[in-house]
């Protein structure tokens, strides 16, 4: 149920901008299905090509043949395929700065992979995996904030962390007492809270940075 139709977007620039914004996930999905891989950054070349193709599709759509999305899917797919073909023909001619950038990116990603691998091993010791965390992590953003904040505070308590690594579980009763948290909340999200505590205790800086927005956003709130 789009608030703005393709026809409106065609004639009004403001509506077009809103329409394109609303269709960004659609572009991501379509491009990703053509390339067979996920778009990794907003600067992905294929993603830009897809956005451009969407813009063109708005102009070309006359509303008589099919739904806009069906039409736009074809336009985007063809445009991305064309781009990929050209890229293949051209081969890779990297400049010095491209090479440097690639090296920097790679070293970042090696650090990241090492951090995740180490974190994975820790989780295994506790008897669960990231896949398990999908089901037990708080679904609501406020609950996640609360759990992340709690995990962070737990990580600052040496006794708690010693207990956690020794007993491989949270000292729920003490956490409830010290942080005045509800027992039910701690129980319900204990794996998630424990994971967060480990992230902060082990100083997984890249992962910390990754989820830092949640906490940073939280700091502006009353506490």
């Amino acid at each position, binding site marked *: *149920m*789009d608030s703005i139709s393709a026809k409106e977007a065609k004639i009004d620039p403001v509506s077009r901008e809103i329409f394109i914004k609303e269709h*960004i*996930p*659609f572009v*991501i*999905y379509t491009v*990703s299905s053509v*390339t*067979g*891989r*996920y*778009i*990794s*950054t*907003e600067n992905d070349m294929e*993603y830009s090509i897809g956005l451009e193709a969407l813009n063109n599709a708005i102009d070309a759509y006359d509303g008589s043949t099919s739904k806009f*999305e069906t039409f736009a899917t074809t336009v985007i797919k063809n445009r991305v395929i064309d781009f990929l073909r050209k890229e293949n023909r051209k081969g890779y001619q990297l400049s010095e700065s491209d090479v440097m950038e690639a090296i920097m990116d790679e070293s970042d*990603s090696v650090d*990241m*992979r090492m*951090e*995740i*691998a180490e*974190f*994975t091993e820790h989780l295994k010791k506790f008897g669960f*995996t*990231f*896949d398990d*965390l*999908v089901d037990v*992590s708080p*679904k609501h*953003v406020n609950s*996640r*904030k609360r*759990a*992340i904040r709690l995990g962070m505070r737990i990580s600052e308590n040496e006794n708690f962390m010693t207990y956690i690594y020794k007993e491989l*579980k949270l000292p*729920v*009763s003490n956490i409830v007492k010290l942080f005045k948290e509800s*027992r039910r909340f701690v*129980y319900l999200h204990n794996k998630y809270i424990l994971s*967060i505590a480990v992230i902060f205790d082990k100083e997984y800086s*890249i*992962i910390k940075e*990754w*989820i830092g*927005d*949640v906490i940073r956003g939280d700091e502006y709130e009353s506490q």
Partner: protein
Amino acid sequence: MRANKGKIMEILESHAVVMTSDGHFNRIKRKDSMRIGADVIYTSGDLVEKPSSKKGWVFGLKAQVAVATFVLLTLVMSQIAMPAAYAVVSLDINPSLQITVDESRKVVGIDPMNTEADELLEAYVLNEDKDLHAVINELIKLSNAMGYLTNENHNVILATAMVDRKNSKSGSDELMTEILDVIEETEYTFDFTLVSTVREASELKNAKSEGLSLGRYAMAKENFLPPGQEKKIEEPVEIEPVALDAEPQIEEEEKPTLPPGQEKKVEESKNIDNEKPVPPGQAIKEQNTPSKFVITEKKAASPNDNKGNGKNKGGGKGN
């Protein structure tokens, strides 16, 4: 459809797990060139499980197929899962727990019914395929280790069984017999009064709606108080199921001195169908005992008891 950015944390055969920058974990489809640690932008269309987005769905057919598959799977799974819950055994020490078992007596779940049970279960690891007998014993022993059952207290354990089948009565009786046998055969380091009762499935529903374990519900329903706690009736206290909750600080007055021959541990607690279900060899208190409750005194194992003897006949209190 919504787009999210996530970091790939785990790549499995069928899917990958990503963590979003707000700390959420998602399962997404596996695609080419996935690398641990890489940032990916994905949409709700890439989620492996039921999409969480409630917004307009471009690929309606896909969504419908996904939802239909999910519903079908849920139905199939529920059909498969149904036979798992064969019986419920509640154990009120306090802590108050409810144990669900399958037909082969394997424990499929333990529900804490109060905060003490939360604490107990926090310290207890339920392994897969663990059978009821082992679990009951371990929980009782753990309750002792955690100070809920001690020799200083007048310990009361209420064991309640309910089999959710057509022949539930005989099934429940059989199950309770097994439980009593297990307790009988086990050596404990503390005395306790075991109150056992078998109940019906309808009572479980009522207990659930009251937020009580089956045993505590049964006690409340029949205004039954276990031995050692009857004295409370004289006081202006409502007969509530919380009777077991009260720390058993009550002095053991009028505790019957058992004849030497009867200072035995639990033996053959199998006559729970009888009007007067008095298992032989047990010290039984009969006051305030409705027919559905059977009371058994279990004595602590003497340090001299030979563990290899199996049944602990004649085992008196430690001192």
